[in-house]
């Protein structure tokens, strides 16, 4: 009688231990991957959520006519001669007055108190006044931005220790800010400006927003959608339905699968050399960005469109041809509509990929500092020709700034970008589920 099956022999025990170890490796690989994802997302969210909050100072600002409208005719053209520098002392004095009114005492000089206000605030007030000259002479309540350092106090970025070493603020200012917050003068609230305001300079991270970047990304997505979708679908139809099998179409096939794997930065070099240096399109324009992203997205769209066309069974084509439709009619009347959900899903995924792409856009100048909202069309620059920036490039841009407040902005921009991507992918998944067809 051989060994009983009911007794596990030593060798099998050893082999089973090995099996368990192997399985554990596999499981830990998955855990590592999931953990990496979790850490990545938490890190970004932790750093970035505060970008959606901003600290404001509610101030009653007297707008003296003798300083802001020296001519006295309330004509915006004349009043524009007073620059933001003229507004600075007004705001400073208003804050000093507010501190006194609250009965707070501080060792800070009036200048130091003035530094608690964002440098952007005077421009905001000036714009309001120029838009509505009748405000001059009145005392108006403004919600003005606190400086980046004061903002940092309420977000835990600036501490007493860091303030003591910081030339731009001091522990006294922090204490005063806390007291003002208790008095309800300083308040941290949701920051719509983050989505609408343009970028701001190095000195004023508190004012920087994503307005231009979102607009630029939107323009580029429009260009990509209107070029890549028709071109991608047309070339897929040709390759899948009409192309003869020969060397030329083989070449196109190999070429497309290789283009899908070309590093994105190479497309940037292409854009720089062809669209900017050779065709002389405007640098930094969404048009060039869109063209570069179109070329980059094209292989993705072609590959998914061809898969969608391939999944339509030949019997559909035969049925159409059988009732006397031409090949072209069978494709456009029957195959294409059936493949449409798959094509759409592929297109959205391609667009999402294009939306997050950064490297090629750096090379075509979209990293420039742009404060003007680009117009979709202008007579001088043509369609989508005005300088702009884009969401992911704005992130890169902010990472290059020295003020740590920009880290929060960059992370906030990333969250915004990820939310857009999440929405696009959710739509793609929904479409796939909704229209999925089993033949």
């Amino acid at each position, binding site marked *: *009688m051989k060994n*009983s*099956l*009911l007794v*596990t022999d030593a*060798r*099998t025990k050893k*082999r089973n231990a090995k099996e368990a170890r192997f399985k554990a490796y596999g499981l830990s690989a998955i855990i590592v991957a999931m953990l990496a994802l979790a850490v990545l997302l938490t890190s970004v969210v932790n750093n970035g959520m505060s970008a959606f909050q901003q600290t404001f100072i509610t101030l009653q600002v007297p707008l003296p006519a003798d300083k802001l409208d020296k001519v006295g005719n309330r004509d915006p053209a004349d009043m524009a001669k007073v620059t933001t520098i003229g507004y600075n002392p007004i705001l400073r004095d208003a804050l000093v007055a507010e501190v006194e009114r609250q009965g707070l005492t501080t060792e800070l000089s009036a200048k130091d108190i003035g530094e608690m206000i964002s440098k952007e605030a005077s421009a905001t007030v000036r714009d309001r006044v120029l838009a509505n000259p009748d405000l001059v002479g009145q005392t108006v309540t403004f919600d003005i931005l606190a400086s980046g350092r004061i903002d940092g106090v309420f977000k835990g970025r600036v501490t007493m220790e860091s303030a003591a070493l910081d030339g731009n603020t001091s522990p006294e200012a922090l204490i005063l800010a806390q007291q003002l917050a208790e008095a309800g003068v300083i308040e941290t609230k949701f920051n719509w400006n983050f989505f609408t305001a343009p970028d701001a300079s190095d000195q004023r991270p508190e004012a920087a927003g994503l307005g231009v970047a979102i607009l630029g990304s939107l323009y580029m997505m429009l260009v990509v959608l209107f070029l890549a979708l028709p071109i991608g679908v047309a070339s897929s139809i040709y390759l899948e339905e009409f192309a003869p099998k020969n060397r030329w179409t083989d070449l196109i096939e190999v070429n497309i699968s290789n283009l899908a794997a070309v590093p994105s930065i190479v497309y940037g070099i292409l854009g720089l050399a062809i669209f900017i240096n050779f065709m002389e399109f405007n640098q930094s324009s969404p048009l060039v960005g869109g063209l570069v992203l179109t070329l980059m997205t094209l292989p993705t769209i072609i590959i998914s469109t061809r898969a969608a066309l391939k999944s339509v069974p030949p019997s559909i084509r035969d049925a159409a041809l059988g009732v006397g439709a031409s090949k072209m009619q069978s494709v456009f009347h029957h195959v294409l509509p059936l493949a449409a959900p798959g094509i759409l899903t592929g297109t959205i995924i391609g667009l999402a990929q294009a939306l997050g792409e950064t490297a090629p856009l750096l090379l075509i100048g979209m990293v420039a500092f742009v404060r003007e909202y680009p117009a979709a069309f202008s007579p001088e620059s043509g369609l989508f020709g005005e300088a702009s920036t884009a969401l992911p490039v704005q992130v890169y841009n902010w990472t290059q700034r020295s003020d740590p407040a920009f880290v929060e902005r960059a992370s906030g921009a990333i969250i915004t970008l990820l939310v857009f991507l999440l929405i696009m992918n959710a739509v793609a998944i929904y479409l796939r589920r909704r229209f999925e067809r089993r033949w």
Partner: protein
Amino acid sequence: MEDMIHMDRAMSTQQDIKISARNVQVYYGDTHAIKDVSVEIDDKTVTAFIGPSGCGKSTFLRCINRMNDTIDIARVTGDIRIDNEDIYDPKVDPVQLRAKVGMVFQKPNPFPKSIYDNVAYGPKIHGLARNKADLDEIVEKSLRKAALWNEAKDRLDAPGTGLSGGQQQRLCIARAIATAPEVLLMDEPCSALDPIATAQVEELIDELRQSFSVVIVTHSMQQAARVSQKTAFFHLGNLVEYDDTDKIFTNPQDPRTESYISGRIG
């Protein structure tokens, strides 16, 4: 010739019972694939399972070395004993069981390795050879038993996938017997082979009976009649009839068996 067969029969009836199944049920999800099958399979005998496709004969075969464990939705109840040990006992390691109960599949499935490595694979994982010489000997013996030695001895390093269909299947048989099993399960081993290769494999099966208890699933009644001593007829998941092969083919008890062997169902 006639006498020899009778002698064999006489011997086989004296054999011990190798496998005994009692009230076996198999479910694939909601499908009841095997319904209350009980059967006793003799040692050193070729037992054939026949029946129309989808009747459960392969499913039942896969229960005997617990290959159904690899299918997530399969559930087996009842009692299968080999040498009077319950193979579904939680203490039984399927790995050890499968070393004892080898299996040959419908389509020849040599590994993408050399002929030698294909045959040596089982002995290596089960640690049956103490050294290289031992292993060489096992490989040669197995290939000889599988009647492949003469064709393969000069190209043991060639890939197993380069052999012809019949040779591949004999390689798979050699691979299975290299682990020194006591039972050999064959799931339609000739269905992918041409008639000449089939004849070779059938001849081989008859020889294997000397050392193993062989269970073969086949869709060909002629094959069952040619190679087996006992035959079980399955129909719609039921074991309809189980008896000596010549009895099944000459004097079936059940009308369903009769319909099948006379070609009216299946």
